[in-house]
């Protein structure tokens, strides 16, 4: 039973999070920061695209491995 639950959890994790958990964590941070800044009334639209660009660049760079 525990093995089955574990395999279901791993399948969900793999489906949602995939190869790089830092991407998923970064998305949560990006949207959280946007919500906080928007809540203060400041302009917040630029935060998500900026964080996502950095996330993609750092993720592929990490995947490419050391020089």
């Amino acid at each position: 039973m525990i093995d089955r639950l574990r395999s279901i959890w791993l399948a969900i994790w793999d489906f949602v999070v995939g190869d790089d958990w830092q991407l998923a964590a970064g998305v949560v941070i990006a949207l959280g920061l946007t919500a906080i800044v928007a809540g203060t009334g400041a302009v917040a639209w630029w935060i998500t695209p900026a964080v996502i660009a950095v996330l993609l660049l750092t993720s592929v760079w990490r995947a490419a491995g050391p020089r």
Partner: protein
Amino acid sequence: MSGAELGLALSVFLACAVEAVEALTIVLAVGVTRDWRSSFYGVGAALVALAIISAVLGPALTALPLDVLRIAVGGLLLVFGLQWLRKAVLRAAGLKALHDETAAFAKERAAAQAAGSTDSRAIDGYAFTIAFKGVLLEGLEVVFIVLTFGANQHDVGLAAIAAGVAVVTVAAAGVAVRAPLARVPENAMKFAVGVMLTSFGMFWGGEGAGAHWPGADAALLALIPGTLLVALASVLGLRRRARVGAPA
């Protein structure tokens, strides 16, 4: 058809076509090697499971408040889109092998041949299970994209039609050539889908989080090419890095 509707239809069509090509490869391999009847039962069972999942998830998604829906869907689209884009960038830069449907077909066929044989009158459990798993797993992503894109644009029907057209097109091509669809430019399609999912994810996620986009929906016209530029710059940067790091 408005720009947003065209974006919705195109994104869903491309994503579903890619997933359908992968599912088709698996079904062809077990059908050719093992038993067509059991493979088709597996496909049918997976389609029923997907229909039940859609019927349960669809109303649940559309019942959510709009901002909650947008931040949840935007976040998930971003995670999926970034995963697709990351793989496509690494493949385009030559750092990850291109997805080769002929190789995938050969691998599935070898595994199917290695599995034990069964009574020809009975359902072949191996063929059924592999076809079921392949269609269910690839189909789940299709269902998610159809429901999230459709619910956000209040047009699940258009998303479902685009998905249906993609699946029928790929299935018809598979029946016509009776071989894995190796010539489909899968990486280019994955690149395009990654860009679209990431762009729509940023747009809806940002809106759900309370941001106001300059130009409202027109912001997508900047987000999509902007995402494409970052992805292409990543490919060029990685290729250059590989050249500079290569021994003379």
